[in-house]
């Protein structure tokens, strides 16, 4: 039994998620945007792990989900960075404002 209520973990996760979101939506350096997204994923993981412990049927599944998320996040980070580098080669910038080839 923990003396920390589940809502405290959830609140922490919310705060981290919001920070990540803010970073993802406002930062102009693409690397930082990617990092912010990782932060958001982390916040989600906290939730998963929290729910694996709390609730009527605590189970290990939540932790397993967190593990999967981490691995997918790792893969995403790798691919994201690869894309970033190849974009950088093409445009010589990592400024997200200048990446607007979707418009054309």
């Amino acid at each position, binding site marked *: 039994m923990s003396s920390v209520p589940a809502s405290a973990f959830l609140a922490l996760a919310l705060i981290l998620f919001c920070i990540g979101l803010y970073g*993802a*939506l406002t930062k102009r350096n693409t690397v930082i945007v990617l990092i912010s997204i990782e932060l958001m994923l982390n916040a989600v993981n906290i939730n998963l792990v929290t729910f694996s412990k709390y609730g009527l049927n605590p189970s290990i599944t939540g932790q397993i989900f967190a593990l999967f998320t981490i691995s997918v996040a790792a893969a995403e980070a790798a691919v994201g960075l690869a894309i970033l580098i190849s974009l950088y080669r093409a445009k010589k910038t990592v400024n997200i404002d200048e*990446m607007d080839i*979707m418009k054309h």
Partner: protein
Amino acid sequence: MGLSTKTGRCQALLGFDKIRVVPGTARRGIVIMMENAWLIPLFPLLSFLILLLFGKRLKEASAYVGILFTLASLVYSILVLFERFSEPTYGTNFEWLTIGDIHLTAGFEVNQLNALMLVIVSLVSFLVHTYSKGYMNGDERFPVFYAYLGLFTFAMLGLVISPNLLQTYIFWELVGVGSFLLIGFYFYKEEAKAAAKKAFIMTRIGDVGLFIGMILLFWQTKSFEYSEIFKAVDAGAVSGTMITLTAILIFIGAVGKSGQFPLHTWLPDAMEGPTPVSALIHAATMVAAGVYLVAALFPLFQASKTALLTIAVIGAFTAIFAASIGLVQTDIKRVLAYSTVSQLGYMMLALGSAGYVAGVFHLMTHAFFKALLFLAAGSVIHAVHTQNIEEMGGLWKKLKFTGPLFLIGTLSISGVPLFSGFFSKDEILAAAWEGGHPILFFLALIAAFMTAFYMFRLFFMVFTGKPRTEMKNVHESPANMTYPMMLLGVLAIVAGYVNTPWFGSFLGDWLVDGNPRLGHAHVEGPIWIMIAATVVSLLGIFMAYLMYYKRSLARNWLSGTGDTLHTILTNKYYVDEFYQLTVIAFTKGLSYFLRFIDVFLVEGLVKGVVGIVQGLGRTGSRMQSGQVQTYGAVAFIGLALLAVIYALTGGYLR
């Protein structure tokens, strides 16, 4: 109308099946003529239609079509009149239009006034048709002229035979159109165009008064039918103010049509039309329609002292006002036009002084002598090709028929004893003295003096003295122009004897027969009135004789050296200019102001709408920046908005 039974639509469509006799007149003798009196207006209509369709092919022969059909009307009218002497009023109606429970009817009615008017109108119309054959000879739009004449005659006959206000209004407008078309007959002349437009619009101002009055009266009495209206008024179903209001509004219509002050200015301008038209429309028939309307609705007017007084005052004022302008005009037709306005004022004065018989009587005699004067003037113009009396003179010898005929007309209008105008004018003066106001009586007396003066001024300037300009080829008009004038000349002398203080007031007795509301058949005025009238007219003639025949009096004898008065009179008291500066300027100003609104405010609104749409489009296209982050931000803000709304209003989260 007023028939409140609900009828099915099938019946409404069959129309003529519903002919019925006006209540109270059900006593039927053998009234074959009156039964079919509706044919009278149809003859000229037929003439109009035939000439409209085949006029081009008929060419000069179209005159015969017109003459023939109006002759048919005339004959029929006379027959109807004679039948009416012995039979009671006859009328029928059929359903014209159904509005819910309201059934509006159309029909015709032959009462004394109508029968008399039918004869006057068809007679003058027939004579003018005949006269025009010569006068309009050679005009390339000859058939059109006759077509228009037919249209006008149709409308005028329809007007006088109408049994209800609505139908009266309908024909009232149609005569307006006939008049409009004929004034503008020489359409390529700018003056004719302006005059036609002015005539139509000014009379329409009056018509709107009639329109409002008619509708208000309808909602008060639930009927347009004359008989129903009088019944309601007698029964006291209409409040006093309402009677006064509607009566005055209807009178405004009469003011417009009869050229009473302040809507008189179109009538002199209407002289731009061909002269026979002036004789037919702007002297004998249409302009008298205003008088006819007041006469037809006389019981209504009689129920309101205020309305009667208004009529009397406007009539008297117009009489003297127009007469004073007539003193100085130099255009032969304009002098006659102002004299018409003045004489119409006389009739109004008579009606306003409760002199029903006097008004109608003068209407009749005036129709004859004024038509005669106009036709004679037309004959003069035909001969000398000018309308300016300053350029005429000494035509007496050259125009063997026209001269004496014109003199007869002049004597008659001046009120010289034994001519028709004398009797009717005397009748009016007596009525004004008895029923009106002394001031109005004296105004009328002065107007009579002026009339005598300017009419003889005209006569002397045109027919006596020496020609003031060189005139060649002056010849008497052809027979088909002189015969109508002769007939009118005879009538101008004898028409007065149907109602005299000496030989009995036959006309008056007949007119008011069975209708006590219309007042006395004959107003017995003091004997000095007749003497005064005679003296006044002879004085006028004498002064004109001195100034324009003997030339023993200088022409500016009256106005003195200062010509201010003369200038004012020549410029017709600047009424036209006044309207130009006020009403027209105001209308124009308002129009431009509204255009300002239209261009700036309303168009601004449009620009605003267009701007918003374009702005939205532009924003939308700017939003498509290709920047994923922005898209994400927008999408997220939307999501957040939804989440907040749900959280606040309670949704899945609660």
